[in-house]
């Protein structure tokens, strides 16, 4: 994260980190979700990453001068946290069908 110099670059790196996490750590969950919806795995991952990036877009703007409120590392960690919540949401909506 030290070499990152712009919000755009940070968001691009976070997109890769998120995709890697989804495919390596949550592949089984994603398979179960995709089995219940109308888009394939690739499209689903794409939509999920897009959603999370949208959530942290503003934070990324404030991780660089002139107004630094967060570090790039903090933005990445927030993105991962948001991603986990989105997967939990989709597990409830599309796999368990149990809205609690």
């Amino acid at each position: 994260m030290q070499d990152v110099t712009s919000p755009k670059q940070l968001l691009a790196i976070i997109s890769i980190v998120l995709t890697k996490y989804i495919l390596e750590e949550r592949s089984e969950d994603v398979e179960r979700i995709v089995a219940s919806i109308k888009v394939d795995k690739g499209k689903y991952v794409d939509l999920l990453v897009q959603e999370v990036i949208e959530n942290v877009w503003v934070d990324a703007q404030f991780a660089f001068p002139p107004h630094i409120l967060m570090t790039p590392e903090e933005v990445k960690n927030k993105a991962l946290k948001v991603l986990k919540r989105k997967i939990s949401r989709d597990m409830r909506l599309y796999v368990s069908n149990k809205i609690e």
Partner: protein
Amino acid sequence: MRFHVFKFRPSSHSEDYTLIATYADEEEARAVGRKLLQMLEDMKRNEEDYNADWSPSEASVSIDGRRVVFNVYTAGYLSDVRALLEKVGLLQSLECYENYQEIAISVTVPRGLSVEVAMVVYQGVEVEAIKWLLKNCGQPEIVDGNNGRIFKWYYRGDEIYNDGILYLGNFQFEVYKYKNWSVE
């Protein structure tokens, strides 16, 4: 890896947003509508899992044939809804409007006049309005009545009409000043 530019990026002010998702058939639209309602229920209990500045009780969902219509007052926090609309059905189109309006704009002209001739007969802002309507709404419906011929355009989209004034691109048309024009 695609890098996205987001249409629904949240802004600093709120508007009445309407998302209209169109699917291949009514059955699919109904399935998406049901899932959307489930999502609103889920939001009530798992607020932290959603990126929204609105309460699920403030949102509305309706089905209109192959279309699912979602409406809420927000500063653009629509990513959860959009993602669902794209996942649950095979989306044919997704439209997003601010302060959505469905209106009919009419102008009464002498009988027998075509739109083209009307644009020669009339002047100034009326001609500009007709040009805008032709460009954005297409050819008008034509009704011949006792008092003349009515050209009627049907518009749906972002808000263009408020308090007697049509906001057509870069000019304002004060409809209330013209007896032969009406908006309903």
